[in-house]
């Protein structure tokens, strides 16, 4: 996998792509990366199976790769991503942790400092908030602070963003928070092919990498994400476009479609207002298409 994304960006902006490629290599790389993952042909598999096969292949290839997290072993993974791995690799390399995110994330990071290649799984990224200090202050910053003397080849993975009916504390999208951290690579797979490729690449990558799994689509004027609107990924994309030649190609202001600026409610009718759906996206796109600067 040639290009790893620094920001949590898997967006495509078809008609301004060329302008971006000249002026903003990061976003351009994102577009190219996305295209190269979506090849034709091959085997159809679920994201979960894609991740499972990525883990299996990387653990087979490198003895230093190991997996730890809650329920990753005997339970075969809370979402079955690690199914069969304990049987295949044994308890030395597939480790069920206690429910202590701060501790086991720190342990994983320390083991990476000492030469191993951990895959640290969070049951959801919401729980990783307990470990965010270790991810940001220990994993992301140490290579720089040590003047290059300490390495941290760790991969953090887990489900991110909304799920149905799980309410406020289990529905947050962390793309913006982790995406903002220098020293951390953040990737967000779009489909199974992405998922397998990105997980394999992340494990092989010598930097700390976080893999957050969510659905994001944009068209040329509209960004769409599940996260909260303020200071988010969409805001970042808008800013980057504004600062680039792409700005000159816009016929209308960029619009962000985001999660509502509200802790996610539980009741289904209320929850329906919390995250973008096709109706909202279509409405905004149409509205945007009807606008033209100067008209």
């Amino acid at each position, binding site marked *: 996998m040639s290009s790893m994304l620094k920001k949590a960006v898997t967006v495509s902006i078809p008609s301004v792509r060329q302008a971006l490629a000249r002026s903003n290599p990061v976003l351009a790389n994102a577009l190219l990366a996305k295209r190269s993952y979506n090849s034709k042909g091959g085997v159809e598999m679920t994201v979960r199976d894609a991740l499972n096969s990525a883990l299996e292949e990387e653990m087979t290839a490198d003895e230093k790769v190991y997996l730890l997290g809650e329920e990753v072993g005997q339970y075969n993974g809370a979402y079955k991503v690690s199914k069969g791995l304990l049987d295949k690799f044994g308890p030395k390399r597939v480790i069920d942790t*206690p429910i202590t995110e701060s501790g086991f994330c*720190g*342990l994983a990071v*320390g083991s990476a400092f000492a030469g*191993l290649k951990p895959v640290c799984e969070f049951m959801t990224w919401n729980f990783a908030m307990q470990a965010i200090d270790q991810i940001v202050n*220990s994993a992301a910053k140490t290579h720089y602070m*040590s*003047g290059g003397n300490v390495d941290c080849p760790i991969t953090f993975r887990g489900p991110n963003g909304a799920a149905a009916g799980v309410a406020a504390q289990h529905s947050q999208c962390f793309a913006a928070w982790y995406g903002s951290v220098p020293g951390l690579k953040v990737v967000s797979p779009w489909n199974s092919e992405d998922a397998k490729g990105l997980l394999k690449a992340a494990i092989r990558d010598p930097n700390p990498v976080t893999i957050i799994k969510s659905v994001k689509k944009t068209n040329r004027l509209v960004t769409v994400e599940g996260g909260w609107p303020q200071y988010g990924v969409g805001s970042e994309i808008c800013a980057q476009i504004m600062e680039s030649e792409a700005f000159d190609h816009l016929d209308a202001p960029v619009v962000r479609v985001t999660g509502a600026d509200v802790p996610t409610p539980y009741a289904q009718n209320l929850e329906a207002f919390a995250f973008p759906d096709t109706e909202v996206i279509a409405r905004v796109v149409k509205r945007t298409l009807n606008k033209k600067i100067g008209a």
Partner: protein
Amino acid sequence: MLSSQKINLAKVAAKAFITPLTVRTFASSAARSVNINLHKGSFESYNCDLPSLDVEISKEELVRMYRSMVTMRRMEMASDGLYKAKLIRGFCHLCTGQEAVAVGMETALTAEDKIITAYRCHGFTYMRGGSITSILAELLGRKAGISGGKGGSMHMFTPNFFGGNGIVGAQVPLGAGIAFAQKYLGHKAATFSLYGDGASNQGQVFEAYNMAKLWELPAVFVCENNRYGMGTAANRSSANTSYFKRGDYIPGLKVNGMDVLAVHQAVAYAKEWTVSGKGPLLLEMETYRYGGHSMSDPGTTYRTREEIQHMRSNNDPITGLKQRLLEFNIITEDEMKAIDKAARVEVDQAVEEAKASGEPDLSEFWTQIYQKDSGVPYVRGREPEEFHRY
């Protein structure tokens, strides 16, 4: 990778080195080692045996301990001066008074063993192979600094020393992870994770204890109890100040951390314990810092000057070892003075070298955010026109 100027390779690789001074001292008496009896109150145990109070140690090791502590103190005093001269910025946490812990630990370990601590790390960095010049240069934010000037006082590392960590308590799970890696890789090495009385109540410390015991990691957790977490006395922060018992299911040992030989003995015991497969162990080093928590803290608003003076006069680790060296005729007063003087000269020279080093090249601003050549093409600066392409 660290250059040879930054790491004293002799220190890292070899436990023993002979200097002309120590060769001279052998001439003064026939035996190469001595047996020293530690004071009965040196240790207290929790669910484990006490280490022996009888220490057998070579004379050259004792002299080395003395030299190390004296040099370390000189180095910290020099840092104090540089800070007051405003050549060091930000935080600076000195270990003056606590020298016996870093020195006693190092003499009981090998280069394969690992250490991690928090921000009071200059002494450990020195013992683990960092050169004085590279430590001082780091404090000054210079190119010759052990972290290239990019980390500062709290972020110093050597191949077997993992810092230098700024977030209180975070180093403890990291240390458990380093121990995990030793076990995973089949290395017969112990990992020592140090934290203070202030950090001892952190939840993540207990999370680390739990995993270390569950998975029988070769981890030694060391509470450097200097009685004050910044300005808060231990009994105001901790419902249970018997830090060596806080591991509950992990046995523990309380140690007189002002006695370098007691520290040495306890650390040797702990290493043997963990490496032989008994799982983790907890050590509490009772120690004391003469200075404040950091250079921003006078250290006298929450404790009395009498207390500080009492510790200096009665419990100083360097004076304590000095008395032993004289009592056992290891070296003479004059030889000791020569060591003191040599340490001062060495540190003064290092100060000059550190000062002579320039600031890091501006290009270093952009390096080591990510690993070199790992696919990141571009990093943005403060505004769109300020950026770096790799």
